């Protein structure tokens, strides 16, 4: 059942895959950042910087998938 369904998939599958991966990555970054702020609220600004940078790198993949992969 699953295999024929997968075989029928068309369209921009690579964008979907990149979006799924980026979403997982951003979620994990957010989770760990919240945990880190919970442990050490004084370092919130530094953690925010790291988290935003990592988030930017993670979500950048989607834009490569959209614009650069044909």
């Amino acid at each position, binding site marked *: 059942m699953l295999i024929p369904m997968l075989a029928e998939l068309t369209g921009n599958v690579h964008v979907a895959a990149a979006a799924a991966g980026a979403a997982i990555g951003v979620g994990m970054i957010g989770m760990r950042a919240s945990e880190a702020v919970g442990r050490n609220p004084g370092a919130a*600004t530094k953690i925010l910087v790291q988290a*935003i*940078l990592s988030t*930017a790198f993670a*979500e*950048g993949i*989607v*834009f490569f998938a*959209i614009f650069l992969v044909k």
Partner: protein
Amino acid sequence: MRTFLLFLVGVLGIAFAPLAFAAEGHAVAAPAGHAEHAEKEGIPLYAAPVAKFGPLVLTNSMVITWAVAILLIIGAQLAMRNVRMVPQGAQNFWEWLVEGLDDFLGGIMGADLARKTFWFFATLFILVLATNWAGLIPGVGSIGWGHPDENGHFHHFTTSLLRGANADLNMTLAMSLVFFACWIVWALQANGPGGFVMHIFGPKGDTTGIMKWGMIVVFLAVGVLEVVSIAFRPVSLSFRLYGNIFAGENMLETMATLVPGFGWLIPIPFYFMELLVGMVQALVFMLLTAVFTLLICSHDEEHAHEPAHGHAGEHKH
């Protein structure tokens, strides 16, 4: 005050940078955009030209970029016309903004480097933030002109007068390339030509004897990888900002037409999300460029030159 003048010069420089790129990009970009727009709804991928002056083409995203830049310059000049010791009103706002950015950049890059490069990063942040938010003002992208069909009815317009500035790849690419040029200059100033090459290809860490020769080979290979990653930075910077803002505009448009009759209600939460995205992307653009600059300008060996409140973790890379 000197910093402020530098800041204004920076705003001007960046605002006018897209001129050349827009004129150049138009030649190939516009016809494809028209063809694509004819068959599918939604925002065209490319900025549309609104006026032509000989070889120079004025696109709708340039209109808003210049409008925002001029407003920023006039606003800053008006606010700083009679400077008071205890700031009030507009002066207070601008001082809060500039001081906050100064503290923030100083915390990331160290006081010396932040002082030297502040004009660029503060300008980037303020300009990107202002253009992102200006693109959300109702009327931007929805006021324009179109052509009637055979029966004389207007269905949708083809050219909008204004377009979010960062929803144009020319603008974001121009900013990244300006940063790249500045980055090279700052790297050469901080390291010297030899030090610049050594910074990328040279071996790091303190190994001795035969291991050292192995390390030199390894770090030569690492340097090649680093050159590739550096060369890809302008691409990723420009696509990240363009993608986020363009996707946001497209999403707002989709949300407005999703459920018939509720086009006025459904986009509202997404407007708030776009406010947040505009802020975060401005921050990301400034942060990434600042960190790239820090990485190349920081010295591994000369620990004496580190700022007092140094960031030990950021010096190893």
